[in-house]
């Protein structure tokens, strides 16, 4: 019996060692894992998705904001009558029975059926209390003015991770600012999973997106979209664009292009429609570039308004190319005022030759031609100027009347605004201020890009352009009582090394009132069919809109 005592003692020691070993395993070896497991049971991380910032027009109206929408999902395990549920959802959501049935697999617990359901529909379906059917709340972009300013604002799509991302326009350019920062809050729960109030932490590391204020005037934007739509139809054009800018600040007052798309249903449109042609499309500006070239020659002191053109008696031949005027009419000893008035190509060849290649490149660069304007919109492009070595005599001559050189409409609008702003070139901008999630508003400063010409030259050029409106080929469309400075442009379209004789890009650029310009506007029609000339198409559209703008701004006639 003596062995019993040592036996029991050994067993007890072994058991003790076993318990110590086990305790060591759980409390030392697996300590971290168990702590993590415990934390996950009583601590809950709540992900806080930031609300995307709004985009507001100059009157404070949110042209882009957020709305509540719902995702309808089904838990197949909780569905009581599968056939009846499919039948109901099919009729309520306008989906085929087969598409719903294929998703309701019994091994799944969460099947998304349809997203983008509005509150009214959600109430209707939710009221039926269909077993297994639930909703998830989401915020999606909402456009109170529908597709107004679509090219300017862009749209919100999804990135590779399925998260919201802004594309093109303002949404693309200011995506990081608008998106905000994702945050989270921690919540401690009791054994039954109920939150413990004393241990709750506030949201950390996140903030809602900033809201943007635009210089865009909602009423004017609406007006030009209507006028553009009417103009494209009336003149049988392929498309068109209108841009209006404040010459003193560079603020974009309105910008529209046709055809356009609806940002709320962007996926229904061809991707080529997403880009804003006013900042992405390059074209040969034709006669609308003439004032820029002439201003350079005036500023350099090479010509005066009274300088007579000694080559304007007929067509000129340069490097084997015959150059004509648009109507084959020639004016002997015409002066520079009349060159712009008649939109005389030969007169502009004379000016270009006076200027020379080096000064031509220098002035074009000073006016911002061949460079990005720096407008705060995603997708801007620019066609660089040819290198100095690639300029031949004929290039110099054709650039004088706006052919053989490509610009974007925003480049031209920005450069032309210089005349209306005492010779100062402003950087065009869309956003004038932003407001952070704490309600603090920060104004964006305006930027002078350069002073390409003197104030005196700007004034002289303004008078030459006012004369062109008064006496030029578009005089029939001018406004009575108002002084407007402007220029038509009927540009040929290069096709496979030649110019298409049957189609043009018709445009009109100008500003008003001459003495204190309130706006600069560029109207472009692509391949109008009723007439290929800008004087018959783009010019009347310009004056039609200008009349409404002057009335809107409350500017009385000066004459």
């Amino acid at each position, binding site marked *: 019996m003596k062995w019993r005592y040592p036996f029991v003692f050994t067993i007890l020691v072994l058991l003790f060692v076993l318990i110590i070993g086990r305790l060591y395993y759980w409390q030392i070896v697996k300590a971290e894992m168990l702590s993590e497991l415990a934390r996950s049971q009583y601590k809950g991380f709540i992900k806080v998705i930031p609300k995307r910032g709004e985009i507001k027009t100059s009157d404070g109206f949110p042209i882009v904001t957020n709305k509540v929408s719902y995702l309808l999902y089904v838990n197949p395990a909780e569905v009581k009558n599968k056939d009846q549920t499919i039948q109901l959802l099919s009729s309520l959501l306008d989906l085929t029975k087969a598409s719903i049935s294929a998703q309701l697999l019994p091994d799944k617990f969460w099947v998304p059926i349809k997203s983008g359901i509005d*509150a009214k529909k959600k109430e209707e379906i939710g009221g039926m209390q269909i077993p297994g059917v639930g909703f998830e709340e989401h915020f999606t972009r909402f456009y*109170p003015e529908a597709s107004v300013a679509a090219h300017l604002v862009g749209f919100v799509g999804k990135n590779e991770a399925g998260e919201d991302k802004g594309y093109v326009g303002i949404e693309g350019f200011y995506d990081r600012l608008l998106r905000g920062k994702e945050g989270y809050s921690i919540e401690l729960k009791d054994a039954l999973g109920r*939150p413990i*109030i004393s241990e709750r932490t506030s949201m950390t590391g996140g903030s809602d997106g900033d809201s943007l204020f635009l210089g865009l005037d909602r009423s004017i934007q609406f007006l030009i979209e209507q006028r553009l739509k009417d103009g494209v139809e009336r003149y049988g054009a392929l498309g068109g664009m209108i841009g209006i800018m404040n010459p003193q600040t560079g603020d974009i007052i309105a910008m529209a292009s046709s055809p356009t798309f609806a940002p709320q249903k962007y996926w229904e449109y061809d991707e080529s429609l997403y880009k804003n042609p006013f900042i992405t499309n390059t074209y040969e500006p034709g006669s609308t570039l003439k004032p820029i070239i002439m201003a350079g020659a005036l500023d350099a002191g090479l010509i005066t308004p009274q300088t007579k053109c000694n080559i304007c008696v007929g067509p000129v031949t340069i490097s084997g190319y015959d150059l004509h005027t648009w109507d084959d009419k020639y004016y002997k000893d015409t002066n520079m005022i009349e060159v712009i008035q008649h939109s005389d190509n030969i007169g502009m060849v004379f000016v270009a030759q006076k200027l020379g290649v080096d000064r031509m490149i220098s002035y074009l660069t000073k006016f911002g031609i061949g460079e990005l304007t720096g407008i705060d919109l995603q997708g801007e492009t620019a066609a660089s100027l040819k290198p100095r070595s690639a300029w031949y005599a004929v290039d110099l001559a054709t650039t004088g009347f706006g052919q053989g050189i490509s610009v974007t409409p925003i480049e031209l609008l920005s450069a032309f605004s210089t005349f209306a702003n005492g010779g100062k070139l402003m950087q065009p901008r869309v956003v004038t201020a932003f407001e952070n999630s704490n309600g603090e508003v920060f104004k964006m400063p305006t930027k002078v890009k350069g002073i390409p010409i003197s104030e005196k030259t700007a004034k002289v050029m303004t008078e030459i352009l006012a004369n062109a409106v008064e006496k030029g080929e578009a005089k029939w469309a001018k406004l009575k009582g108002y002084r407007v400075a402007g220029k038509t442009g009927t540009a040929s379209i290069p096709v496979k090394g030649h110019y298409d004789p049957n189609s043009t890009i018709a445009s009109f650029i100008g500003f008003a009132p001459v003495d204190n310009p309130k706006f600069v506007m560029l109207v472009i029609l692509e391949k109008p069919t009723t007439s290929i000339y800008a004087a018959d198409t783009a010019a009347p559209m310009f004056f039609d809109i200008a009349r409404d703008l002057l009335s809107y701004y409350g500017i009385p006639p000066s004459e």
Partner: protein
Amino acid sequence: MKKSYIIMTFLLGLTIVLSVGRAVLSNTLSTSGIFVSKAEQEINSYKTQNVILSEKLLTASSLTNIIEKAKASGFTDEKALMVIKTSGPLAVRP
């Protein structure tokens, strides 16, 4: 001796009161999480309602909607401008 006895008793009593108070408070707070949860749900529901109402308000006040309603009511664009100029004072007339 008597004074220190009173202080000791007071401190002991205070400790017991505070401990009991803490226990009561913790118990109360531990169950109030349910009410907080409900209150939060209610706040979120009001927030959602606000967003839905603001959506309706913005739609109603949009130019797109106003113009449609104006057209339906028979309003048309006024093309002719009328300007009333004030005549200069007698003293400056030639």
